[in-house]
């Protein structure tokens, strides 16, 4: 077990080092920071002085080392555009993205699990077939198109919900939440729905496949023979055995959702980290781009590693057999 832990952690650290190398390379590729920070009248001496102060005259590997150790301490420098601390800017936007992702995940579970069960136990009926068919479409629809469609129907034509922004927010400590006000709750429905659509179909397909597998097993046959009502068999006994993979997949997908939320945030002008990143891309604000990449990759890698380790703790067969 200890060997497995060390191996997984080493793997995660290797990935994070590679990601920070990519982030570091963006700095090198996109222009000379000295030219970006000084105006055109600056003398050669001023340039050299700044170059020296930023550590840009050091060897490449030393610069990379400095970048990594600063990043590990949360210091990603200041934004080129508005001269604020990058980490602070991202932290300020984090609650918006996080709430969006959590609500989307909840929607996907609440909608996806029953749909998966129904398509598995009522396989031949027209509504199960229809759900199966829609799920292919659900996987294929681009999430920004779904978002635009929702805005068009529910905001422009029906006028039920706001099309952009977060509504009113309440501050609890440093966390600003939109879930406690009416306008905040109304605002989160459409973006969360459009973010969760893909996820719903994933959950549904997974639950369906697992249910079909479990329903074939002996203990279900035995329960049937004992005369336990079908409802109890399906929901109490069979479904319970399907939930573990669903939980795992959901946990692993959260990292992906945080990254993918940037598309949804752009459509709905949702003031989260993703929108900040897209704006930074437009203005080539490299420190924000690099910091966002590192932070999202960190969340992604941490979640995956945690899930793997938890799995190995539950299922000892996995400890030896790592690819």
């Amino acid at each position, binding site marked *: 077990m200890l060997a497995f832990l060390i191996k997984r952690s080493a793997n995660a650290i290797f990935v994070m080092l590679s990601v920070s190398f990519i982030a570091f390379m*963006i700095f090198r590729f996109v222009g000379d920071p000295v030219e970006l920070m000084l105006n055109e009248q600056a003398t050669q001496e001023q340039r050299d002085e700044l170059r020296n102060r930023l550590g840009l005259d050091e060897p490449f590997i030393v610069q990379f080392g400095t970048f990594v150790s600063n990043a590990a301490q949360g210091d990603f420098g200041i934004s080129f555009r508005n001269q604020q601390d990058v980490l602070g800017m991202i932290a300020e936007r984090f609650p918006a993205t996080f709430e969006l992702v959590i609500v989307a995940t909840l929607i996907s579970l609440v909608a996806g699990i029953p749909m998966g069960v129904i398509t598995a136990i009522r396989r031949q009926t027209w509504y199960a077939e229809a759900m199966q068919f829609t799920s292919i479409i659900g*996987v*294929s*629809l681009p999430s*920004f*198109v779904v978002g635009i469609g929702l805005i068009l129907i529910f905001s*422009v034509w029906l006028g039920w919900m706001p099309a952009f922004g977060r509504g009113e927010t309440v501050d609890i400590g440093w966390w600003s939440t939109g879930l406690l006000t009416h306008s905040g709750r109304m605002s989160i429905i459409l973006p969360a729905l459009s973010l969760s659509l893909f996820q719903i179909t994933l959950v549904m397909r997974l639950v369906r496949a697992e249910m079909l597998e479990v329903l074939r097993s002996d203990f279900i046959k035995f329960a049937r023979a004992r005369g336990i009502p079908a409802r109890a068999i399906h929901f109490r006994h069979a479904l319970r055995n399907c939930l573990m993979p669903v939980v795992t997949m959901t946990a692993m997908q959260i990292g992906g959702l945080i*990254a993918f939320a940037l598309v949804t945030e752009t459509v709905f002008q949702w003031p989260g980290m993703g929108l900040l990143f897209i704006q930074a891309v437009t203005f080539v604000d490299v420190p924000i781009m690099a910091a966002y990449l590192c932070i999202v990759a960190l969340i*992604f*890698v941490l979640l995956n590693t945690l899930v793997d380790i938890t799995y190995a703790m539950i299922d000892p067969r996995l400890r030896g057999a790592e690819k």
Partner: protein
Amino acid sequence: MTDIPAPTPKIKPKTRSRRELFFDSDLWWSFKSSKSAMGAAIVLGLVILAAFLAPVLSPQNPYDLAALELWNAELPPVWMEGGQMPYILGTDVQGRDILSGILYGTRISIFIGIASVLVSLVVGVLAGLTAGFYGGWVDNVLMRVGDVLLSIPIILVAILVSSVAQAMLPPELREAGIAVVLVLAIALYSWVQYARVVRAQTMVERRKEYVQASRLVGTPARRLMLKHILPNTLTPVFVAATLNFGLAILIEATLSFLGVGMPPNQPSLGTLIRVGNQYLFSGSWWIVLFPSIQLCILVVAVNMLGDWLRDALNPKLR
């Protein structure tokens, strides 16, 4: 008189053309019996045909600025009040015909999709073959690179590569280079999938007797890999390629929608949606709606074909 033995009649082996073989195959049978696969193939065929006939079919060349008439701006579709021929689906704010824009845009989307699938396929298959055949450090390095790429969300990689590369392009290359950058940005991620599939299969194949035998007669490694092992690894590659084609179109559309993809003067479907999105609240919903529908039709058709192909080629499901 000596008997001349009558020549034995040569039994002509029944040769069947490739065409006959194809129409007799399991694959074709499975295709014929799947309504959704047939439907998807017909729709996809029509979409591709229309896109490649765009110069003939479309009433207007959307790139020709002289053809734009501003007094025809923001016309609604023809079946609504105020709509007029030949602008069947209406016009955008510059008087550009929506239908023509869609046809040309689909062409760009399909082109980028195909190109990125080809690039990632070639790179992935070669990497997978090499890694699986030689093993050792080559295998380790290639697969580690793949692992790292897959542990970063795809959309981030694509956005970063495409925006950074565009910033680095010299201005005179920017027009022509963007499509190439997009193709590479998408391929950078998707080659890993082919590489993994081919590697796993190669590792199985290289231990088989026909490979050993062919090695004994001195077949060079390159020929062994490309002529003997490669054909036996291709089935899962086809499935992955179809599904990746849909994914590539989606990513390109997303990048263009976010503003790091195709520019407005060479719009793909994603760019058209990005531009149309700005007029969502002005009541001109058709500018954004029709390109969106076309994008959905295209991706849904490709994915349904891919889904069918995966099931049809899966020996476990036969």
